[in-house]
Protein backbone atom coordinates (compact mmCIF):
# COMPACT_ATOMS: atom_id res chain seq x y z
CA UNK A 1 0.00 0.00 0.00
CA UNK A 2 1.52 3.32 -1.01
CA UNK A 3 1.85 6.17 1.54
CA UNK A 4 -0.89 8.28 -0.10
CA UNK A 5 -3.32 5.39 0.27
CA UNK A 6 -2.40 5.15 3.98
CA UNK A 7 -3.04 8.90 4.38
CA UNK A 8 -6.42 8.48 2.68
CA UNK A 9 -7.28 5.62 5.05
CA UNK A 10 -6.26 7.73 8.08
CA UNK A 11 -8.46 10.57 6.85
CA UNK A 12 -11.31 8.09 6.36
CA UNK A 13 -11.02 6.79 9.94
CA UNK A 14 -10.84 10.31 11.34
CA UNK A 15 -13.94 11.45 9.44
CA UNK A 16 -16.10 8.37 9.86
CA UNK A 17 -18.34 10.03 12.49
CA UNK A 18 -18.95 12.96 10.09
CA UNK A 19 -19.89 10.53 7.32
CA UNK A 20 -22.37 8.90 9.71
CA UNK A 21 -23.87 12.28 10.59
CA UNK A 22 -24.17 13.20 6.91
CA UNK A 23 -25.71 9.82 6.11
CA UNK A 24 -28.46 10.42 8.68
CA UNK A 25 -28.96 14.02 7.57
CA UNK A 26 -29.13 13.27 3.83
CA UNK A 27 -31.41 10.22 4.10
CA UNK A 28 -33.66 12.05 6.55
CA UNK A 29 -34.03 15.10 4.29
CA UNK A 30 -34.53 12.96 1.21
CA UNK A 31 -37.16 10.73 2.83
CA UNK A 32 -39.00 13.80 4.14
CA UNK A 33 -38.97 15.47 0.72
CA UNK A 34 -40.29 12.33 -1.02
CA UNK A 35 -43.01 12.00 1.57
CA UNK A 36 -44.02 15.65 1.10
CA UNK A 37 -44.20 15.04 -2.66
CA UNK A 38 -46.55 12.11 -1.96
CA UNK A 39 -44.04 9.84 -3.66
CA UNK A 40 -44.06 6.32 -2.26
CA UNK A 41 -40.81 4.50 -2.94
CA UNK A 42 -39.74 0.91 -2.27
CA UNK A 43 -36.69 1.91 -0.22
CA UNK A 44 -34.22 4.61 0.70
CA UNK A 45 -31.02 2.80 1.59
CA UNK A 46 -27.68 4.15 2.71
CA UNK A 47 -24.29 2.64 3.44
CA UNK A 48 -20.84 3.88 4.31
CA UNK A 49 -18.01 2.04 2.59
CA UNK A 50 -16.15 -0.17 5.06
CA UNK A 51 -12.46 0.31 5.67
CA UNK A 52 -11.75 -3.08 4.10
CA UNK A 53 -13.69 -2.14 0.98
CA UNK A 54 -11.91 1.22 0.74
CA UNK A 55 -8.55 -0.50 1.19
CA UNK A 56 -9.45 -2.91 -1.63
CA UNK A 57 -10.42 -0.01 -3.87
CA UNK A 58 -7.16 1.84 -3.15
CA UNK A 59 -5.14 -1.31 -3.84
CA UNK A 60 -6.99 -1.95 -7.10
CA UNK A 61 -6.85 1.63 -8.37
CA UNK A 62 -3.69 2.87 -6.64
CA UNK A 63 -2.48 6.18 -7.92
CA UNK A 64 -5.88 7.34 -9.16
CA UNK A 65 -6.81 8.92 -5.84
CA UNK A 66 -4.76 11.66 -4.16
CA UNK A 67 -7.01 12.41 -1.21
CA UNK A 68 -10.27 11.22 0.35
CA UNK A 69 -12.15 14.01 -1.46
CA UNK A 70 -11.36 12.26 -4.78
CA UNK A 71 -13.48 9.28 -3.74
CA UNK A 72 -17.16 10.05 -4.21
CA UNK A 73 -18.77 6.82 -3.02
CA UNK A 74 -17.65 6.58 0.60
CA UNK A 75 -21.24 7.49 1.41
CA UNK A 76 -23.69 5.87 -0.99
CA UNK A 77 -27.43 6.33 -0.94
CA UNK A 78 -29.88 4.43 -3.06
CA UNK A 79 -33.51 5.27 -3.74
CA UNK A 80 -35.48 2.39 -5.20
CA UNK A 81 -38.75 3.36 -6.85
CA UNK A 82 -41.72 1.23 -7.79
CA UNK A 83 -42.29 2.98 -11.13
CA UNK A 84 -39.85 4.03 -13.82
CA UNK A 85 -41.33 7.51 -14.18
CA UNK A 86 -40.74 8.09 -10.47
CA UNK A 87 -36.96 7.90 -10.97
CA UNK A 88 -36.97 11.37 -12.54
CA UNK A 89 -39.23 12.69 -9.76
CA UNK A 90 -36.73 11.46 -7.18
CA UNK A 91 -33.95 13.05 -9.24
CA UNK A 92 -35.74 16.39 -9.15
CA UNK A 93 -35.99 16.15 -5.35
CA UNK A 94 -32.27 15.34 -5.11
CA UNK A 95 -31.52 18.31 -7.39
CA UNK A 96 -33.53 20.61 -5.11
CA UNK A 97 -31.94 19.37 -1.89
CA UNK A 98 -28.27 18.93 -2.75
CA UNK A 99 -25.58 20.39 -5.00
CA UNK A 100 -25.01 18.09 -7.98
CA UNK A 101 -21.62 17.59 -9.60
CA UNK A 102 -23.05 17.25 -13.12
CA UNK A 103 -19.69 16.51 -14.67
CA UNK A 104 -19.34 13.29 -12.71
CA UNK A 105 -22.98 12.29 -12.50
CA UNK A 106 -24.15 9.58 -14.87
CA UNK A 107 -27.47 8.72 -16.39
CA UNK A 108 -26.82 5.11 -17.28
CA UNK A 109 -30.23 4.95 -18.90
CA UNK A 110 -28.83 7.07 -21.72
CA UNK A 111 -25.47 5.45 -22.30
CA UNK A 112 -26.81 2.27 -23.88
CA UNK A 113 -26.74 1.88 -27.63
CA UNK A 114 -30.14 1.46 -29.24
CA UNK A 115 -29.58 -2.28 -29.54
CA UNK A 116 -28.07 -2.96 -26.10
CA UNK A 117 -29.76 -3.65 -22.82
CA UNK A 118 -28.27 -3.74 -19.37
CA UNK A 119 -27.70 -1.73 -16.23
CA UNK A 120 -30.07 1.22 -16.02
CA UNK A 121 -29.69 3.63 -13.16
CA UNK A 122 -29.29 7.30 -12.50
CA UNK A 123 -26.23 8.22 -10.43
CA UNK A 124 -25.79 11.72 -9.03
CA UNK A 125 -22.61 12.84 -7.29
CA UNK A 126 -23.75 15.29 -4.64
CA UNK A 127 -22.48 17.53 -1.90
CA UNK A 128 -23.90 19.49 1.01
CA UNK A 129 -22.53 22.70 2.56
CA UNK A 130 -20.19 22.16 5.50
CA UNK A 131 -19.14 18.64 4.48
CA UNK A 132 -16.07 18.48 2.21
CA UNK A 133 -16.71 14.99 0.80
CA UNK A 134 -18.98 14.18 -2.10
CA UNK A 135 -21.42 11.32 -1.92
CA UNK A 136 -23.37 9.30 -4.46
CA UNK A 137 -27.10 8.92 -4.82
CA UNK A 138 -28.31 6.10 -7.07
CA UNK A 139 -31.90 6.09 -8.29
CA UNK A 140 -33.50 3.11 -9.97
CA UNK A 141 -36.63 1.01 -10.08
CA UNK A 142 -37.23 -2.14 -8.09
CA UNK A 143 -36.81 -4.24 -11.24
CA UNK A 144 -33.60 -2.44 -12.26
CA UNK A 145 -32.40 -3.01 -8.71
CA UNK A 146 -33.19 -6.73 -8.89
CA UNK A 147 -31.40 -7.08 -12.22
CA UNK A 148 -28.34 -5.13 -11.03
CA UNK A 149 -28.07 -7.18 -7.84
CA UNK A 150 -28.37 -10.51 -9.64
CA UNK A 151 -25.90 -9.45 -12.30
CA UNK A 152 -23.51 -8.17 -9.66
CA UNK A 153 -23.88 -11.34 -7.63
CA UNK A 154 -22.97 -13.61 -10.51
CA UNK A 155 -19.75 -12.12 -11.76
CA UNK A 156 -19.64 -8.36 -12.16
CA UNK A 157 -16.72 -7.87 -9.77
CA UNK A 158 -15.04 -11.22 -10.32
CA UNK A 159 -12.60 -9.87 -12.86
CA UNK A 160 -13.12 -13.03 -14.85
CA UNK A 161 -14.50 -12.60 -18.33
CA UNK A 162 -18.16 -13.53 -18.29
CA UNK A 163 -19.26 -16.21 -20.78
CA UNK A 164 -21.02 -14.74 -23.80
CA UNK A 165 -24.18 -16.84 -23.32
CA UNK A 166 -24.52 -15.53 -19.76
CA UNK A 167 -24.07 -11.93 -20.86
CA UNK A 168 -26.57 -12.41 -23.66
CA UNK A 169 -29.16 -13.95 -21.33
CA UNK A 170 -28.73 -11.19 -18.77
CA UNK A 171 -29.16 -8.60 -21.56
CA UNK A 172 -32.33 -10.36 -22.68
CA UNK A 173 -33.64 -10.16 -19.12
CA UNK A 174 -32.69 -6.49 -18.87
CA UNK A 175 -34.70 -5.81 -22.04
CA UNK A 176 -37.65 -7.75 -20.68
CA UNK A 177 -37.56 -5.93 -17.32
CA UNK A 178 -37.41 -2.60 -19.17
CA UNK A 179 -40.62 -3.57 -20.95
CA UNK A 180 -42.23 -4.65 -17.67
CA UNK A 181 -41.22 -1.37 -16.00
CA UNK A 182 -42.84 0.55 -18.87
CA UNK A 183 -45.94 -1.63 -18.63
CA UNK A 184 -46.33 -1.02 -14.87
CA UNK A 185 -46.12 2.72 -15.51
CA UNK A 186 -48.63 2.49 -18.34
CA UNK A 187 -51.07 0.55 -16.12
CA UNK A 188 -50.68 3.14 -13.35
CA UNK A 189 -51.34 5.97 -15.81
CA UNK A 190 -54.43 4.20 -17.17
CA UNK A 191 -55.75 3.59 -13.66
CA UNK A 192 -55.25 7.27 -12.79
CA UNK A 193 -57.10 8.24 -15.99
CA UNK A 194 -59.93 5.82 -15.11
CA UNK A 195 -60.22 7.33 -11.62
CA UNK A 196 -60.35 10.86 -13.05
CA UNK A 197 -63.06 9.79 -15.51
CA UNK A 198 -65.10 8.14 -12.74
CA UNK A 199 -64.73 11.23 -10.53
CA UNK A 200 -65.90 13.41 -13.42
CA UNK A 201 -68.92 11.17 -14.05
CA UNK A 202 -69.80 11.16 -10.35
CA UNK A 203 -69.43 14.95 -10.19
CA UNK A 204 -71.59 15.40 -13.30
CA UNK A 205 -74.32 13.20 -11.86
CA UNK A 206 -74.27 10.58 -14.64
CA UNK A 207 -74.36 7.85 -12.04
CA UNK A 208 -76.13 5.25 -14.18
CA UNK A 209 -73.00 5.12 -16.34
CA UNK A 210 -70.64 4.57 -13.45
CA UNK A 211 -69.85 0.94 -12.63
CA UNK A 212 -69.91 0.20 -8.91
CA UNK A 213 -66.37 -0.54 -7.75
CA UNK A 214 -63.94 0.57 -5.07
CA UNK A 215 -62.87 3.72 -6.89
CA UNK A 216 -66.34 4.87 -7.90
CA UNK A 217 -67.84 4.11 -4.48
CA UNK A 218 -65.05 6.09 -2.78
CA UNK A 219 -65.77 9.09 -5.02
CA UNK A 220 -69.50 8.66 -4.42
CA UNK A 221 -69.02 8.68 -0.63
CA UNK A 222 -67.29 12.06 -0.91
CA UNK A 223 -70.69 13.42 -1.98
CA UNK A 224 -72.03 12.25 1.42
CA UNK A 225 -75.04 10.47 -0.08
CA UNK A 226 -76.34 9.30 3.32
CA UNK A 227 -76.00 12.66 5.01
CA UNK A 228 -79.67 13.72 4.74
CA UNK A 229 -80.89 10.39 6.10
CA UNK A 230 -78.30 10.37 8.88
CA UNK A 231 -79.28 13.86 10.01
CA UNK A 232 -82.95 12.87 9.98
CA UNK A 233 -82.20 9.80 12.09
CA UNK A 234 -79.97 11.80 14.46
CA UNK A 235 -82.80 14.29 14.99
CA UNK A 236 -84.89 11.55 16.64
CA UNK A 237 -82.75 11.78 19.81
CA UNK A 238 -80.83 14.99 19.00
CA UNK A 239 -77.84 12.72 18.63
CA UNK A 240 -74.38 13.65 17.40
CA UNK A 241 -73.05 11.79 14.38
CA UNK A 242 -69.57 10.35 14.39
CA UNK A 243 -68.26 10.17 10.83
CA UNK A 244 -66.76 6.78 10.05
CA UNK A 245 -65.48 5.09 6.88
CA UNK A 246 -68.30 3.52 4.86
CA UNK A 247 -66.33 1.57 2.27
CA UNK A 248 -67.40 -1.74 3.85
CA UNK A 249 -70.91 -1.12 2.50
CA UNK A 250 -69.64 -1.61 -1.06
CA UNK A 251 -69.83 -5.39 -0.57
CA UNK A 252 -73.37 -5.10 0.81
CA UNK A 253 -74.61 -2.95 -2.09
CA UNK A 254 -73.02 -5.48 -4.46
CA UNK A 255 -74.86 -8.24 -2.57
CA UNK A 256 -78.07 -6.30 -3.10
CA UNK A 257 -77.50 -6.45 -6.86
CA UNK A 258 -76.23 -2.91 -7.43
CA UNK A 259 -74.02 -2.74 -10.52
CA UNK A 260 -73.79 1.02 -10.94
CA UNK A 261 -73.80 4.03 -8.65
CA UNK A 262 -77.20 4.79 -10.18
CA UNK A 263 -78.46 1.52 -8.66
CA UNK A 264 -77.18 2.62 -5.24
CA UNK A 265 -78.90 6.00 -5.58
CA UNK A 266 -82.16 4.22 -6.52
CA UNK A 267 -81.86 2.05 -3.43
CA UNK A 268 -81.24 5.09 -1.22
CA UNK A 269 -84.32 6.84 -2.65
CA UNK A 270 -86.49 3.75 -2.39
CA UNK A 271 -85.59 2.73 1.15
CA UNK A 272 -84.68 5.96 3.03
CA UNK A 273 -88.15 6.22 4.57
CA UNK A 274 -88.06 2.55 5.65
CA UNK A 275 -84.55 3.07 7.07
CA UNK A 276 -85.90 6.01 9.08
CA UNK A 277 -88.82 3.88 10.35
CA UNK A 278 -86.36 1.24 11.58
CA UNK A 279 -84.26 3.90 13.38
CA UNK A 280 -87.35 5.49 14.95
CA UNK A 281 -88.50 2.16 16.30
CA UNK A 282 -85.06 1.28 17.66
CA UNK A 283 -83.72 4.47 19.19
CA UNK A 284 -86.70 6.67 20.05
CA UNK A 285 -87.30 4.63 23.22
CA UNK A 286 -83.66 5.01 24.32
CA UNK A 287 -81.56 7.97 25.44
CA UNK A 288 -78.76 7.12 23.01
CA UNK A 289 -77.39 10.37 21.68
CA UNK A 290 -74.41 9.24 19.65
CA UNK A 291 -74.63 7.51 16.29
CA UNK A 292 -72.11 6.60 13.66
CA UNK A 293 -72.57 7.71 10.07
CA UNK A 294 -72.99 4.06 9.10
CA UNK A 295 -76.49 4.06 10.61
CA UNK A 296 -78.08 5.40 7.40
CA UNK A 297 -76.55 2.93 4.92
CA UNK A 298 -76.95 0.11 7.42
CA UNK A 299 -80.68 0.69 7.82
CA UNK A 300 -81.17 1.19 4.06
CA UNK A 301 -79.55 -2.19 3.45
CA UNK A 302 -81.66 -3.83 6.20
CA UNK A 303 -84.84 -2.35 4.69
CA UNK A 304 -83.87 -3.45 1.17
CA UNK A 305 -83.15 -6.99 2.33
CA UNK A 306 -86.36 -7.31 4.32
CA UNK A 307 -88.57 -5.70 1.66
CA UNK A 308 -87.22 -8.09 -0.95
CA UNK A 309 -87.91 -11.12 1.24
CA UNK A 310 -84.26 -11.74 2.20
CA UNK A 311 -85.39 -12.38 5.78
CA UNK A 312 -83.18 -13.46 8.65
CA UNK A 313 -80.62 -15.18 6.41
CA UNK A 314 -80.24 -12.03 4.32
CA UNK A 315 -79.69 -9.84 7.38
CA UNK A 316 -77.24 -12.36 8.81
CA UNK A 317 -75.33 -12.32 5.52
CA UNK A 318 -75.19 -8.51 5.59
CA UNK A 319 -73.95 -8.46 9.20
CA UNK A 320 -71.35 -11.10 8.37
CA UNK A 321 -70.11 -8.98 5.45
CA UNK A 322 -69.88 -5.88 7.60
CA UNK A 323 -68.67 -7.30 10.90
CA UNK A 324 -67.18 -10.68 10.12
CA UNK A 325 -68.96 -13.99 10.54
CA UNK A 326 -70.40 -14.59 13.99
CA UNK A 327 -73.24 -16.52 15.63
CA UNK A 328 -74.13 -13.30 17.42
CA UNK A 329 -75.06 -11.86 14.02
CA UNK A 330 -77.68 -14.57 13.59
CA UNK A 331 -79.36 -13.75 16.91
CA UNK A 332 -79.25 -10.07 16.01
CA UNK A 333 -80.80 -10.80 12.60
CA UNK A 334 -83.67 -12.59 14.34
CA UNK A 335 -84.27 -9.57 16.61
CA UNK A 336 -84.17 -7.16 13.66
CA UNK A 337 -86.62 -9.26 11.68
CA UNK A 338 -88.97 -9.38 14.64
CA UNK A 339 -88.76 -5.61 15.17
CA UNK A 340 -89.34 -4.83 11.50
CA UNK A 341 -92.46 -6.99 11.19
CA UNK A 342 -94.66 -4.30 12.66
CA UNK A 343 -93.19 -1.41 10.68
CA UNK A 344 -95.26 0.24 7.90
CA UNK A 345 -92.76 -0.48 5.08
CA UNK A 346 -93.05 -4.22 5.71
CA UNK A 347 -96.79 -4.11 5.20
CA UNK A 348 -96.90 -2.04 2.03
Amino acid sequence: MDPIAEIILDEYRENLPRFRETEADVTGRLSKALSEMGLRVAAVEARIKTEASLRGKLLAKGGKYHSLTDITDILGIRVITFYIDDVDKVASAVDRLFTIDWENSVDKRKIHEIDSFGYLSLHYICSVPGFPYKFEIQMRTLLQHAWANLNHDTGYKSGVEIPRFYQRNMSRLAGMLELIDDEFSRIRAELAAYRRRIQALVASGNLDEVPLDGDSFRSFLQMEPFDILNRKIAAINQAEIEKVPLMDFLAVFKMLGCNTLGDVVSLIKKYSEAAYQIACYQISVTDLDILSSSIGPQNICIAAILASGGGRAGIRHMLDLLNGSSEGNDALAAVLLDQAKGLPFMNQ
Partner: protein
Amino acid sequence: MDIQLIKNEAVTTIRFIGRLDTPASADAAKAVEPALQDAAGTIVLDCSEMTYISSSGLRIFLTLRKAAAAAGGKVIVQHISPDIRQVFMITGFLNLFEIED
Protein backbone atom coordinates in the same frame (compact mmCIF):
# COMPACT_ATOMS: atom_id res chain seq x y z
CA MET B 1 -68.70 -0.14 37.49
CA ASP B 2 -65.38 -1.78 38.11
CA ILE B 3 -62.64 -1.56 35.51
CA GLN B 4 -59.56 -3.75 35.41
CA LEU B 5 -56.67 -2.98 33.12
CA ILE B 6 -54.25 -5.80 32.37
CA LYS B 7 -51.18 -5.20 30.22
CA ASN B 8 -49.47 -8.13 28.60
CA GLU B 9 -46.72 -7.09 26.16
CA ALA B 10 -48.46 -5.56 23.11
CA VAL B 11 -51.97 -6.42 24.33
CA THR B 12 -53.86 -4.30 26.83
CA THR B 13 -57.04 -5.89 28.13
CA ILE B 14 -59.68 -3.73 29.79
CA ARG B 15 -62.36 -5.62 31.71
CA PHE B 16 -65.61 -3.77 32.28
CA ILE B 17 -67.62 -5.17 35.19
CA GLY B 18 -71.15 -3.89 35.77
CA ARG B 19 -73.03 -0.95 34.20
CA LEU B 20 -71.12 1.51 32.01
CA ASP B 21 -73.78 4.18 32.41
CA THR B 22 -73.48 7.96 32.39
CA PRO B 23 -72.61 8.36 36.12
CA ALA B 24 -69.90 5.70 35.82
CA SER B 25 -68.43 7.09 32.62
CA ALA B 26 -66.27 9.87 34.04
CA ASP B 27 -64.36 7.42 36.26
CA ALA B 28 -64.29 4.87 33.46
CA ALA B 29 -62.76 7.39 31.05
CA LYS B 30 -59.97 8.05 33.59
CA ALA B 31 -59.47 4.35 34.24
CA VAL B 32 -58.91 3.53 30.57
CA GLU B 33 -56.56 6.50 29.97
CA PRO B 34 -53.35 4.44 30.45
CA ALA B 35 -54.47 2.25 27.54
CA LEU B 36 -54.28 5.28 25.23
CA GLN B 37 -50.50 5.21 25.66
CA ASP B 38 -50.49 1.66 24.28
CA ALA B 39 -52.80 2.35 21.38
CA ALA B 40 -50.19 1.18 18.86
CA GLY B 41 -50.76 -2.38 20.06
CA THR B 42 -53.98 -4.29 20.58
CA ILE B 43 -56.60 -3.11 23.04
CA VAL B 44 -59.08 -5.80 24.05
CA LEU B 45 -62.31 -4.58 25.61
CA ASP B 46 -63.59 -7.53 27.61
CA CYS B 47 -67.33 -7.00 28.04
CA SER B 48 -68.23 -10.45 29.38
CA GLU B 49 -69.35 -8.88 32.69
CA MET B 50 -70.70 -5.61 31.31
CA THR B 51 -74.44 -5.41 31.86
CA TYR B 52 -75.27 -2.05 30.25
CA ILE B 53 -73.68 0.63 28.06
CA SER B 54 -74.88 4.22 27.63
CA SER B 55 -73.94 6.83 25.04
CA SER B 56 -71.17 7.99 27.39
CA GLY B 57 -69.81 4.46 27.43
CA LEU B 58 -69.93 4.31 23.64
CA ARG B 59 -67.92 7.54 23.54
CA ILE B 60 -65.20 5.91 25.66
CA PHE B 61 -65.06 2.99 23.22
CA LEU B 62 -64.89 5.48 20.36
CA THR B 63 -62.00 7.39 21.98
CA LEU B 64 -60.05 4.15 22.27
CA ARG B 65 -60.83 3.27 18.66
CA LYS B 66 -59.65 6.66 17.41
CA ALA B 67 -56.42 6.45 19.42
CA ALA B 68 -55.75 2.97 18.08
CA ALA B 69 -56.50 4.00 14.49
CA ALA B 70 -54.14 6.98 14.80
CA ALA B 71 -51.36 4.88 16.29
CA GLY B 72 -51.75 1.93 13.93
CA GLY B 73 -53.18 -0.38 16.59
CA LYS B 74 -56.56 -2.07 16.87
CA VAL B 75 -59.43 -2.48 19.30
CA ILE B 76 -61.19 -5.80 19.79
CA VAL B 77 -64.50 -5.94 21.64
CA GLN B 78 -64.98 -9.30 23.29
CA HIS B 79 -67.97 -11.18 24.66
CA ILE B 80 -70.71 -8.58 24.40
CA SER B 81 -74.16 -9.67 25.54
CA PRO B 82 -77.02 -9.79 23.01
CA ASP B 83 -78.49 -6.59 24.53
CA ILE B 84 -75.24 -4.67 24.19
CA ARG B 85 -74.73 -6.03 20.68
CA GLN B 86 -78.13 -4.56 19.88
CA VAL B 87 -77.06 -1.16 21.24
CA PHE B 88 -73.99 -1.33 18.98
CA MET B 89 -76.26 -2.23 16.08
CA ILE B 90 -78.86 0.50 16.48
CA THR B 91 -76.22 3.19 16.87
CA GLY B 92 -74.21 2.05 13.86
CA PHE B 93 -71.27 1.12 16.10
CA LEU B 94 -71.28 -2.59 15.31
CA ASN B 95 -69.04 -2.43 12.25
CA LEU B 96 -66.64 0.04 13.86
CA PHE B 97 -65.07 -2.64 16.01
CA GLU B 98 -63.66 -6.09 15.57
CA ILE B 99 -66.08 -8.12 17.67
CA GLU B 100 -65.20 -11.50 19.10
CA ASP B 101 -67.75 -13.79 20.69
